[in-house]
């Protein structure tokens, strides 16, 4: 009896050690970001990059907050709207591609999937011209449209894979009872989709939140998202890095909040529901 317990104990220690090691590795960049954001401009150089700030300089955060405020608002509107729209399109597309296949649906899916491999830089000019023609150039709505459209392939893929894991029997029995397309979607698929929405939500939100090139080309001053604002902080000939680092921490904050918040739903969604056999 002693052996298994001892072994389990050692295993646990090894486990936590390994996790600890990776924690340190993963946190190194954070350490540097935080430490740099608290330094005075003249103290920032390569040789002292690891050292703690001395003295601690807090003003960067208030300056960054003031400068990034309007951009944060734009980004929040942009990311939330585009993510929600994207997620719904993805879920209903995924429902079709996974549970309502018809002849040619797989071909359509593959053709849509290829849209994932288009580099953002090359479509800049036609995208700009198209948005201008529709009249959406310069506003957040244009950016939302662009992100929703180019997000269709990946959200459809993620949801299709997610729904593939839901056994068909549940749908079959509902269909036998006379349930139609939308009934099954709203009463059976959606309740089970929470983890799917979480994954897709996290993915789209972060991608849209951190996207730079379209943000700077397709918007005007007043509708600039936060990535543009951040790059303004990091612009100029002689960058004092404390300011953009502080700005980066502020920028990352909403996203990390989402991770923490959605992470809980993630696990809850997994343990409930009839996904497990």
């Amino acid at each position, binding site marked *: 009896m002693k052996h298994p317990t001892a072994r389990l104990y050692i295993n646990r220690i090894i486990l936590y050690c390994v*996790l600890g090691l990776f924690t340190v590795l993963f946190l190194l*960049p954070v350490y540097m970001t935080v430490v740099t954001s608290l330094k005075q401009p003249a103290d920032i150089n390569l040789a002292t990059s690891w050292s703690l700030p001395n003295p601690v300089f807090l003003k960067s955060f208030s300056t960054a907050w003031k400068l990034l405020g309007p951009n944060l608002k734009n980004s929040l509107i942009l990311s939330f709207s585009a993510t929600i729209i994207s997620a719904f399109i993805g879920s209903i*597309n995924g429902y*079709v591609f996974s549970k309502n296949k018809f002849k040619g649906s797989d071909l359509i899916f593959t053709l849509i999937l290829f849209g994932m491999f288009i580099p953002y830089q090359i479509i800049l000019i*036609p995208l700009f011209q198209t948005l201008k023609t529709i009249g959406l150039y310069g506003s957040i709505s244009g950016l939302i449209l662009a992100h929703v459209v180019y997000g269709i392939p990946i959200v459809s*893929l993620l949801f299709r894979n997610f729904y*593939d894991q839901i056994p068909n029997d549940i749908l079959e029995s509902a269909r036998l009872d006379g349930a139609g397309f939308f009934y099954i979607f709203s009463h059976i698929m959606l309740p089970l989709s929470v983890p799917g929405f979480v994954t897709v939500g996290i993915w789209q939100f972060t991608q849209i939140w951190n996207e730079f090139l379209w943000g700077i080309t397709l918007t005007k001053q007043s509708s600039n998202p936060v990535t543009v604002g951040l790059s303004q902080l990091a612009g100029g000939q002689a960058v004092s890095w404390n300011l953009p680092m502080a700005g980066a921490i502020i920028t990352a904050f909403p996203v990390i909040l989402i991770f923490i918040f959605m992470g809980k739903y993630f696990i809850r969604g997994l343990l409930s529901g009839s996904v497990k056999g």
Partner: protein
Amino acid sequence: MIDQRKNTVISIVILLPSILLVGIFVYGFIGNTIVVSLTDWGHALGGLSLHPQKNFVGLQNYRDLFTNFIHGRFRQDLINAVFYSIILMAGALSLGFFFAVLLDRKVRGEGFFRTLFLYPMALSFIVTGTIWRWLFAPSGGFNIIPTFFGGEPVDFLWISSRKRVLSFNWQNLPQIFFTAAAIFFTVVILQQLITRSDKHRLRNLIIWGVSVLYVVVLHRLLPPILPVEELHGYNLATLGISIASVWQYAGYTMALYLAGLRALPESLKESAQLDGAGEFLFYWKIAIPNLKPITLSAVIVLAHISLKMFDLIYAMAGADNANTGHPSINMYLTTFRANNFAVGAAMAVILFILAAFFIIPYLVNTHREMR
């Protein structure tokens, strides 16, 4: 039956907006790009005028990209892109799976670890790029860590490195390709000879035999593709960037695998335990094969991400560092700095095809499943 038809109609109507939008914004634009790549728009000055000269030149831009000396950098970028993608995938998939396995064990503070491994995705590349650049700076960052423990600073130049391993000469490319093809075909022939089923044996043997002959003959007939020797290989400078990219996306694959592992029916674990299989065997023989759909979709997502490496490379190494170049950066500079729209478009098409290659395993697998 009527229900089935009604279902299909509704399905098509639901898909219609997506099809239309993707049709215009993806295929329409790709079509436009392909058309531009077949012209000489931007070769001469005046590419930005209201009515620029665009003469049809066929595949000349593509030929130039592979044979003109000035595009030697593009060729290296292609090799870099292959390595970036493969290392990102191998790294993110294995590290992510490893983390998922660790966290699947009722770890205390699992939420903390999960957020920890996932958070790199949240950071903007401007910051990630700069921080990693500092971390990999030869005179600061990782290289001086040993000095804190009394050791010598590390000598590796990371992103500034000009070292290259696995070099090969681009002139030898057709030879390499055909040798590989010949080996592959020979292996298939041998395989055919070994199998017992006679059904299509003769037919297959003939097909593959002819292929080998064809390949060998072609090899002899083709002229050298480059007049001068040009060495390419795996640039060690890309290592730093690959590490940063794996750091950024290992958390995401971890989340996928964690969900997958949790969704594995208890019955599987129990039967493995009953059979006396150890943990390692369980993961190797049962968990991984069952998680194949996740792996395949993660591969596609990571291929999509490897296109976005533009941002990371741009921020870490700058646009002009030839050792860490990527076709997307080259394309951006060629289009918007050198105003050479046609060549930029040709690069984009090649890049698109390269990235789309990673969809093939997914398609093959889905196809096989349908059978």
